[in-house]
C-alpha cells in the first residue's frame, strides 16, 4: 500500500494495522526517515519543504512495490507513506514497513524499498537554514552519492551521461 500525505503518521498504529492482516508472519521491519536539525555543514535547520511530482510519485511507488514482490516472492506485504509540504526538525518524513514470514526477507526488502525511494521517487527537499539571528536562507538539497548503495551510485552516474 502507498500513501502520500501532508499529515504525520502514527508508526505503532501502521505497524499494528499491517501485522493484523498477516497474523502468520514472523517478521515486521520498519524504517522511518526523519527531518534532521542540522545541515551537513552543521548549520541549524528551521524547516524542510518537500516538493513532489503528483502522479509520477504514486506510479514510482507502485513500480517499487511490484519490483520488491518480484524479487522477494515470499514477502507478504508492504506499506510506504511519504509526507510532503513543510516539515520541522525531528518530524517524520517517510515510513516503510515490510511484513514477511522470515526476518531476512523483511529486512532486505525494506532496505530495497528505501534505496529505491532515495534514487527514483520524485520528491525534492528544500532546507530553510538559520544562517544567523536575522538571516534564514533557503536551499535545495542535492542528491548525495553517500545516500546511495555503492552499486546504485555507480549505475546512477552512468545513467546521467546518457545525453
Amino acid at each position, binding site marked *: 500500500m502507498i500513501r502520500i500525505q501532508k499529515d504525520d503518521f502514527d508508526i505503532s498504529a501502521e505497524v499494528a494495522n499491517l501485522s493484523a492482516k498477516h497474523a502468520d508472519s514472523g517478521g515486521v521491519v520498519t524504517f522511518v526517515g526523519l527531518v534532521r536539525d542540522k545541515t551537513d555543514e552543521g548549520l541549524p535547520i528551521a524547516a524542510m519543504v518537500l*516538493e513532489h*511530482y503528483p502522479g509520477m510519485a504514486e*506510479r514510482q511507488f507502485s513500480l517499487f512495490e511490484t519490483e520488491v514482490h518480484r524479487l522477494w516472492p515470499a514477502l507478504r506485504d508492504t506499506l510506504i507513506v511519504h509526507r510532503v509540504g513543510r516539515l520541522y526538525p525531528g518530524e517524520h518524513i517517510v515510513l516503510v514497513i515490510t511484513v514477511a514470514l522470515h526476518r531476512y526477507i523483511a529486512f532486505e526488502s525494506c532496505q530495497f524499498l528505501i534505496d529505491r525511494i*532515495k534514487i*527514483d*521517487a*520524485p520528491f*525534492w527537499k528544500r532546507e530553510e537554514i538559520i544562517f544567523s539571528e536575522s538571516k534564514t536562507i533557503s536551499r*535545495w538539497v542535492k*542528491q548525495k552519492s553517500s545516500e546511495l548503495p555503492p552499486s546504485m551510485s555507480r549505475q546512477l552516474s552512468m545513467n546521467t551521461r546518457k545525453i
Partner: protein
Amino acid sequence: MKTTMRILYFAWLSTEIGLSEENVLVPTWVDNVTKLLAWLKTRTPGHESALSDLSAIQVAVNQVHTCFNHPVTSVDEVAFFPPVTGG
C-alpha cells in the same frame, strides 16, 4: 505547423526558470527530449541558465523516467527535474 506540449519543472529548475509549468507551442522538428531542451533554452535567460548543465537534469515523459533521446509529441507531458532527494 506547430503543436503544444505540457512541460513541468521541479525544484531548483523551477526556481531558476520562474515557472513550475508551461504549455508551449513547439516546432515540428522538436521530436525528442534533446531537441526539446535545445529549443526551450532559447525561450528566456532563465531557461538558458537552468537548462545549461544537462548532467544535472533528468527527464520523465508521461511520468516515466527516461533518457534524452526519447521521442516526444504534442500529447506528452514532459517533466524536467534534478536528481531526487526524497525519503
